[in-house]
């Protein structure tokens, strides 16, 4: 009993002392470190950091970046922020996820949105703005000014939803390319076709000489089918023209409009022609199971002559064989996917966008930095296969000839540039039925009209 009582007493003493200490302390506020922060503008600008002065002193701040780009492609991105981090003192926390598209809405919904995200399709941006109206912060003044001075108006348009500018352009790519082997063409005496008719004539000539002209593959894991949608879009631009293309994207004409049907039929005259495909892999249906990453490889074995795929496909050649050179006089190169006549040469392309989810100065500064020529010119030498549509870029920095060609085509204002339609359409179509129905079209020989009707029916 005695021991218990004394234990209680000492406990009371300790408690009382703690309470007293707190009460005393409560009379004065704790020391604060607010005094040291907040004196923007009046700091030393380090050597080579003049361009970063406008962002102010951001030391100690962090920006959480969330993207779909994972290792090893993420390293050039991470490295391209080095100067920003050194000059402003901010830290960029990079996080890449293969499940980005599925996870981003989940994170927003959970109140755990990143500060900045790279949005791979304008369609996804549209969905996010519609579903979570207050999540994305409209582009700040500094970034918006940059976009207005360095990008064409169309690029601002892709990042705009209902007249509010939400996302700034990041990278760009050109999809209207046909990969081929310059040496094989030279040996066989083939010329690069410049019109659609020449392209078909060349294909027929290859068939007549016992070859199979085209190889294709639309397998891409979660996103299986997208290379087939690119085919249809590229052909649609040529058979129906850019204006009808825009109506199609905005659903001003239905998905099963005769113009789309004509384009699909034209694609079918190549992709569903057993004589034309699928060099090195099998018949038409093998296109559905061939991974798009491997689809062009038969060109290196001399099995396949032509493979329509975007500029970024160049990164894959190294996977097939050591030391493949991508150049006009090398092992593989690409020519412009011909249009009906050389008078009108539309260009299909894509790109990523940057959306911010917070108004903190470091977040706004980082978004503005990504639109600046400084960042673009730092990024270009780091990663072949990455192209920008920034007008102030230094095109001599491109090491790869296909990148230089892409940048040149993007800068050529005589060409009507159009953004990848499936990336602009609502997710249920652009990342859903458009993909799966094109897979059915190829794998199960689903008739053209049923494919288009099914996609039209799924338009939300």
């Amino acid at each position, binding site marked *: 009993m005695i021991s218990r009582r004394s234990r209680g007493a000492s406990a009371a003493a300790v408690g009382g002392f703690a309470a007293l200490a*707190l*009460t005393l*302390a*409560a*009379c*004065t*506020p*704790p*020391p604060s470190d607010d005094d040291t922060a907040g004196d923007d503008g009046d700091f030393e600008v380090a050597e080579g950091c003049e361009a970063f002065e406008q962002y102010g002193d951001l030391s100690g701040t962090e920006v959480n970046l969330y993207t779909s780009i994972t290792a090893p492609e993420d390293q050039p991105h991470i490295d391209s922020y080095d100067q920003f981090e050194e000059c402003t003192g901010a830290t960029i926390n990079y996080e890449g996820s293969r499940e980005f*598209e*599925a996870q981003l*809405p*989940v994170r927003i919904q959970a109140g755990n949105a990143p500060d900045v995200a790279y949005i791979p399709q304008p369609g996804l941006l549209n*969905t996010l703005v519609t*579903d979570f109206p207050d999540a994305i912060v409209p582009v700040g003044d500094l970034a918006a000014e940059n976009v207005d001075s360095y990008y064409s108006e169309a690029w601002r348009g892709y990042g705009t939803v209902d007249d509010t500018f939400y996302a700034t352009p990041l990278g760009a790519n050109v999809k209207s390319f046909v990969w081929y082997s310059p040496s094989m063409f030279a040996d066989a005496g083939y010329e690069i076709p410049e019109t659609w008719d020449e392209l078909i004539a060349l294909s027929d000539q290859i068939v007549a000489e016992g070859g199979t002209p085209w190889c294709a593959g639309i397998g891409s*894991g*979660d996103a*299986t*089918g997208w290379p087939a949608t690119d085919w249809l879009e590229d052909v649609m631009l040529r058979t129906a023209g850019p204006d009808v293309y825009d109506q199609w994207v905005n659903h001003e004409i239905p998905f099963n409009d005769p113009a789309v049907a004509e384009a699909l039929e034209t694609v079918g005259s190549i992709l569903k022609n057993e004589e034309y495909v*699928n060099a*090195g*892999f*099998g*018949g038409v*249906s*093998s296109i*559905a*199971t061939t991974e798009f990453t491997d689809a062009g490889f038969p060109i290196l074995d001399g*099995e396949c002559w032509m493979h329509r795929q975007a500029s970024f496909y160049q990164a894959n050649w190294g996977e097939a064989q050591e030391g493949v050179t991508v150049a006009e006089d090398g092992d593989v190169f690409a020519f412009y996917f011909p249009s009906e006549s050389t008078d009108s040469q539309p260009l299909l392309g894509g790109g990523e966008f940057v959306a911010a989810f917070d108004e903190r100065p470091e977040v706004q500064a980082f978004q503005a930095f990504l639109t600046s020529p400084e960042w673009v010119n730092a990024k270009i030498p780091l990663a072949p296969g990455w192209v920008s549509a920034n007008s102030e870029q230094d095109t001599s920095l491109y090491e790869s000839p296909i990148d230089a060609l892409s940048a040149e085509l993007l800068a050529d204002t005589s060409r009507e540039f159009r953004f990848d339609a499936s990336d602009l359409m609502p*997710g*249920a179509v652009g*990342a*859903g039925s458009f993909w*799966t129905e094109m*897979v*059915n079209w190829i*794998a*199960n020989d689903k008739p053209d009209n049923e494919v288009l009707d099914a996609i039209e029916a799924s338009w*939300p």
Partner: protein
Amino acid sequence: MDVFANAGAWIGYYWEIISGWLLEASGPGQKLLLMALAVVLFVVVMGGILLAVDKPKRIPNWLVATGFVGPALLFVAFGLVYPALRTMYTSLFARNSDDFIGLDNYIRAFSENEFQIVLRNTAMWVILVPLVATLFGLIYAVLVDRTRFEKIAKTLMFLPMSISLVGASIIWRFMYEYRAVLLDADGNPRNNQTGLINQVLVWIGLEPQQFLINSPWNNLFLIAVMIWIQAGFAMTILSAAIKAIPDDIVEAARLDGLKGMQMFRYITVPSIRPALVVVLTTIAMTTLKVFDIVRTMTNGNFGTSVVANEFYDQSFRLGDAGLGAALAVILFVLVIPLVVYNVRQMRLAEEIR
């Protein structure tokens, strides 16, 4: 009032210092100290719990019960019951909006052609996988029982169980891989198949097949993967059950003149019936939830999607949370009878034992 605000600020101030010291150790010395501190904390907490448990007379029964059951109940409530109710609620709304549309999502799921294929596939899976896997497992267990190779044979059969479903799917995708036969000038094939099964077909003089494309047969080739994995599980449980059949029963049956198939039919199967039911229902439940195999091998293309895969697609890829939730609820409803039956059988089996 100012005093309280200051006190709060002071607590926050110290808390920041303390948590900084606890969470961001600067060197090995501090880390060791932190470890020692953690050990002391553990001893204090555990000691406290043990002391409390040592004096049960003073603590009312309901408190002890709450202490043990409470945390579990809380976890079930927040981790299971709330999400389940929330999913059912969401399934009554259009896409991600607040438009109440009643049972429209369910009507869509049952009436649209695309989803009927999904339901048909799920039915194929749930009927075929448990039956075939259990049958294989049972036959195998009986055949290798008490033979010289029993251990090795059983290990081999059980090995696929240790491979993840995604890993198994990738292996089997290679097995099914297809290349067209290219002929050279003399009419002889000049390329090899990259898929093992197609190469075997070519060797025995048959045409290679596009196993993963031709619907509805491609479903069977996906189902084969699940059977390959689950047969080992069935074999293990059933083999143990067979070994548990009392020797006197077997002996008596033998004296009565039962042999081979008859023994299997009248003694083995009835004796292991509870185990058979548990194996069947367990595999059926796993199969209903199948997602990994379909996602990895075909991504639901070529008419191979199942409910779990479609639910994921609708919810996360196509942004139709309402329809996704409806599909999840359908899956939930389909699993319930199996779970109930399974639990009852397990209880019966325990009573017999």
